[in-house]
């Protein structure tokens, strides 16, 4: 194909390039800079090579927070994806119920993250919070500020409350796009409800579910604000997920080198998991 050469096209690319450079590339390069050097301020740097990377990779503290992070992400995906699909299946397909349900479902998504954290903190306080007080009144020994299990339970419950809606909305969109003829064909075949779900609805929702799982994986893997406001990573380090631990290291201890190395490792883990997951899910899609 013959393409005409027109250098003016650069004028359309440059603004985006500058924008991305300022908000992504330059900060990232700063982090890379810190990750390979030691600094004591005053813009004095000493080359350290891969020392920080080795230190992080071998550090038990990093292993522990990475483990907590994977456990948390795994648990919330395991709850939110099936729950989201289940709720989407029960939502009305037409009539006034549709906008009502959609608006109700969107509400948690519209609340700022630190507000969610603050809301749940107050809601779950064992002495004055509605949830905390009620649980204690029912005879459960509940205190998320002191007991590890309770802290996890509250953090997971908060995330499920906040984000299941996203899975619901995506699944609902997927379900709505299935033509009624599919259901009729299944009815003629005498297929059971379960068969309709597994043979028609799930395969037809595959793409939106892939997106839902990817988004939920990334967001939960990078979760910071909500647990920071709710538990502050505590009790002890029990809910110090990767990002919380990272911020503690970078801004609390001011270990800039190791923190930069950690954030790069963190970045590559997210990238790798997303790529592997996406490739696996899309492997059988053919040329579509």
């Amino acid at each position, binding site marked *: 194909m013959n393409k005409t050469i027109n250098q003016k096209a650069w004028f359309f690319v440059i603004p985006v390039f500058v924008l991305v450079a300022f908000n992504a590339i330059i900060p990232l390069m700063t982090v890379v800079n810190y990750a390979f050097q030691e600094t004591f301020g005053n813009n004095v740097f000493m080359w350290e090579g891969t020392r920080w990377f080795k230190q992080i990779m071998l550090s038990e503290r990093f292993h522990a927070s990475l483990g907590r992070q994977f456990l948390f992400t795994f648990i919330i995906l395991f709850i939110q994806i099936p729950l989201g699909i289940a709720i989407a299946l029960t939502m009305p397909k037409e009539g006034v119920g549709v906008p009502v349900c959609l608006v109700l479902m969107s509400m948690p998504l519209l609340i700022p993250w630190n507000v969610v954290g603050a809301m749940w903190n107050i809601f779950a306080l064992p002495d004055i919070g509605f949830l905390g007080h009620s649980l204690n009144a029912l005879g459960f020994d509940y205190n998320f500020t002191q007991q590890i299990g309770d802290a996890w339970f509250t953090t997971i419950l908060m995330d499920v409350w906040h984000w299941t809606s996203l899975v619901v909305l995506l699944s609902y969109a997927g379900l709505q796009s299935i033509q009624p003829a599919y259901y*009729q*064909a299944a*009815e*003629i*075949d005498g297929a059971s409800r379960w068969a309709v779900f597994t043979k028609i609805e799930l395969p037809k929702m595959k793409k939106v579910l892939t997106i839902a799982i990817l988004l939920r994986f990334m967001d939960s893997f990078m979760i910071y604000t909500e647990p920071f406001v709710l538990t502050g990573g505590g009790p002890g380090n029990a809910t110090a997920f990767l990002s919380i631990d990272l911020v503690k290291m970078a801004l609390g201890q001011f270990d800039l080198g190791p923190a930069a190395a950690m954030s790069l490792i963190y970045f590559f883990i997210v990238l790798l998991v997303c790529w592997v997951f996406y490739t696996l899910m899309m492997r059988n*899609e053919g040329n579509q």
Partner: protein
Amino acid sequence: MSLELKNVEKKIGLDTHIYSTNLKLEKNTINILLGPTLSGKTTLMQIMAGLDKPTLGEIWFNEKNVTGMKVQKRNVSMVYQQFINYPNFTVYENIASPLKITGVSSDETKQRVGKVAELLKLSGMLNKKPNELSGGQQQRTALARALVKDSDLILLDEPLANLDFKLREELREELPRLFEDRDCIVVYATTEPSEALLLGGNTATLQEGKVIQYGKTLDVYNKPNSLLSAQVFSDPPMNITKIKKVGDNCSFLDDSVNWKSKINIRDGEYKVGIRPHNITTYKEGSNSLEIKGKVLISELSGSESLIHFTKGDLNWVSLSNGIVQKNVGDEMNLYMNADEFIYFDHNERLVTNG
């Protein structure tokens, strides 16, 4: 075997989707529901299948009242305009799916799927998934699913509408053969008159939820009981003009065209329907009448020429064989075959001799 609709009516809210309908479809016939979009073809089919209940009236199958009986118990199969297959199943599994549920042995399934696949030219792609197939092949798979089951009633709802022209022609020619030697009733919905003529059998013309006429396809085509039925069964649209008859002499109201009528009807004003292919750029038949017109649009369709022209304040359509190219605004002579005129009275009902 027969399928009978007795006074079937369907209302949704205050809207009437199907007006009181009586139809009797006989065994081993192919029945075409011909009508424009929203004429009620799909609704009627869903009622026939048992996917939808009529508001009033009854459906009888084999002299048994099956109104309200669930579709699974009715041994029907249906093919849709969209290519409906199980997305995760291979072509083989898709075709076998209706048999699996009814508990046919695996040997027999294999044999029957093989036979249907061969009939529909799918033998080479039994291990593929639907999304790896072309649209035509996907629809063949859906057809195979409908045929594998030995249904009593096969419903096809515009099965060719979503295919491109070439695939549509190809599959359309194969369709009559597929239903040969089948002990079942076939119902086929379409918007295209040419499809009805090609499939033969019986045709019901539909308009706005009403069955206008039902009978042998050629009879409905040649002797439409009303102007409406004739219009539904004509593509490009039928030309309609008012005429007057005095004694043996018929003429257009403006006296521009005159002819001797062979039809024995009372004197007075009538409407005449003329199908586009009976107006040509050349003389045809012994009773050829000349008509002058001014070209509006001239278009080619394959080896046929479609000329839209105006005469008086009416727009006319003519369809001639061969390639005729005219410029917009040209005055030209066309010829009408008066033997093919269809006469309607002032109520737009067909008038015949006597």
